């Protein structure tokens, strides 16, 4: 176990690297706040888990850029992003009619203003990854499994060579490059659609 990380910037860096300790710490500090808010506002516990995960992924995405600096605390950021994601989800589900009477739309626009861009970037990236995944599903075996093992499951070329029966890592690597070439073709056709 890591000892608690003290500064928020260190915490962010650890989060960006995908460290479990940092992620757990952020979960413990923030999950109950967001889930409490959501349940008070008509969401379920399952909604809360999804929403928190999505907000964490937005933060994770932002933190990948080492020059990223928060202008508020991580907690405030996660809460604001969560609210924004939730309102967006509601809007999508309902196309508004139920809320016509009450929808002034003013105060949450003010609140979400700084985070809207982050959420939009996140959604674009998600769409991009979805396209990538659907290209990957079409790439055929053994390519699909090899690429998944290397990129999704973070396996080394040695492990992959052993798992897929290649005589040495270099052969596996050559195969991986062939697979990438095939994926590229598929991906740019998917994108063109």
């Amino acid at each position: 176990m890591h000892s608690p990380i003290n500064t928020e910037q260190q915490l962010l860096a650890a989060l960006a690297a995908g460290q479990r300790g940092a992620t757990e710490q952020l979960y413990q500090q923030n999950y109950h706040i967001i889930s409490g808010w959501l349940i008070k506002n008509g969401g379920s516990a399952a909604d809360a888990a999804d929403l928190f995960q999505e907000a964490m992924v937005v933060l994770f995405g932002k933190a990948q850029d080492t020059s990223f600096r928060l202008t508020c605390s991580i907690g405030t950021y996660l809460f604001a992003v969560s609210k924004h994601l939730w309102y967006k989800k509601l809007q999508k589900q309902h196309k508004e009619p139920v809320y016509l009477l009450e929808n002034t739309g003013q105060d949450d626009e003010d609140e979400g203003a700084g985070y809207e861009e982050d959420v939009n970037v996140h959604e674009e990236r998600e769409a991009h990854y979805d396209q990538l995944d659907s290209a990957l599903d079409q790439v055929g075996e053994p390519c699909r499994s090899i690429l998944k093992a290397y990129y999704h499951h973070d396996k080394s070329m040695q492990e992959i060579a052993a798992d897929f029966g290649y005589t040495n890592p270099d052969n596996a690597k050559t195969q991986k490059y062939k697979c990438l070439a095939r994926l590229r073709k598929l991906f740019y056709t998917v994108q063109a659609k």
Partner: protein
Amino acid sequence: MSQNKSTWELAEAYIASSLSQGEVGELNARLASDIEFANEFNEAANLIRSMEGNGKQKRFRSMLRDIHEKQTAGKVIKKGLNIVLPAHFWRTAAVAATVAILTSTITIWSLKPRLNKSESQYNNISREVKDIKKVQAQQQATQNQLIQKVNKNIPAPPPSDVKYTGTGFALTNDGYFVTAYHVISDEDSVYIQDHDGDYYKAFLVNFNAEADVAILKVEKKNFRFSKGEIPYVFANSKAGLGSQIYTLGYPKDDMVYNEGYISAKNGFQGNELQYTLALPAGHGQSGSPVIDGKGNLLGLLTAVGSQNEANTYAVSSKALLELLHTIPNANSLHLPRTNKLAHLSRESQIEKMQPYTFSVKVYKK
């Protein structure tokens, strides 16, 4: 030597920053001089970056799920608080909704606007006319008054503000019509505004608050909704699950068309006098006719579900006909008997429906 490496190998090494200084220099020179190679290299590098980013994010997501499961394991998960309203409390619900509406205009700055009604699973969809709408309605009323003064000799609506609006549709051509009871429940006066923008005063004939149906009549003598006969007929029995339906209503000043299907044979909490519909509906559409593709009138819209269940509820024509039989001169009413819509296209059906579907405006002094 980078010339001997494949584009993929180069791109991978470049992203991992594992190229030597000499190799980077060589690569840059080649990228600058060979456009074809540069394109290929960029595509390769972008794809590898995306694959790495996607993989990293997937691992992060699965770690988060794992943390969540471990943290919540053994804890009782609190469920969202839902207040369920018994079916016979509709009238109370309608009143409560009204109170909530009024309250929300006051507390709107302290409460999150789209969410504060989530306790109620059931929202009546009459429309309270808010300030901006009031101004619009007044303007329109004034415009109409002017036009009416010039053209016709029809009484103009009272000067007091429109309180609620709903939708109504004709029961007989000589002025009997139907709307949802909650639309007109606390009326001082009710007017209908027909497709041409003319106002007609109406009075309440009978109602069933529990079923949320009201029958009204236009006061004017020798009134006709339109020259022809009413083109739809009232269904005697309930239509089946999955029937395609549509509705016409006035959530705003123009008539709005929506279509959907019957998603459950009974309504809110199994209410047998209702249907559950998968149909988008908004405030102001209470009382809108629900018609199947063949011109059978199946019911009228009464309420929409809360945000968690995107259902719309309609009172069945059966409840409407039952109420109709309780009015004293029921036998002398000429209900439409011929279905003139059955073989028409949807567009023509709507056109035929227009004179018989109108906005219901409720005024309060």
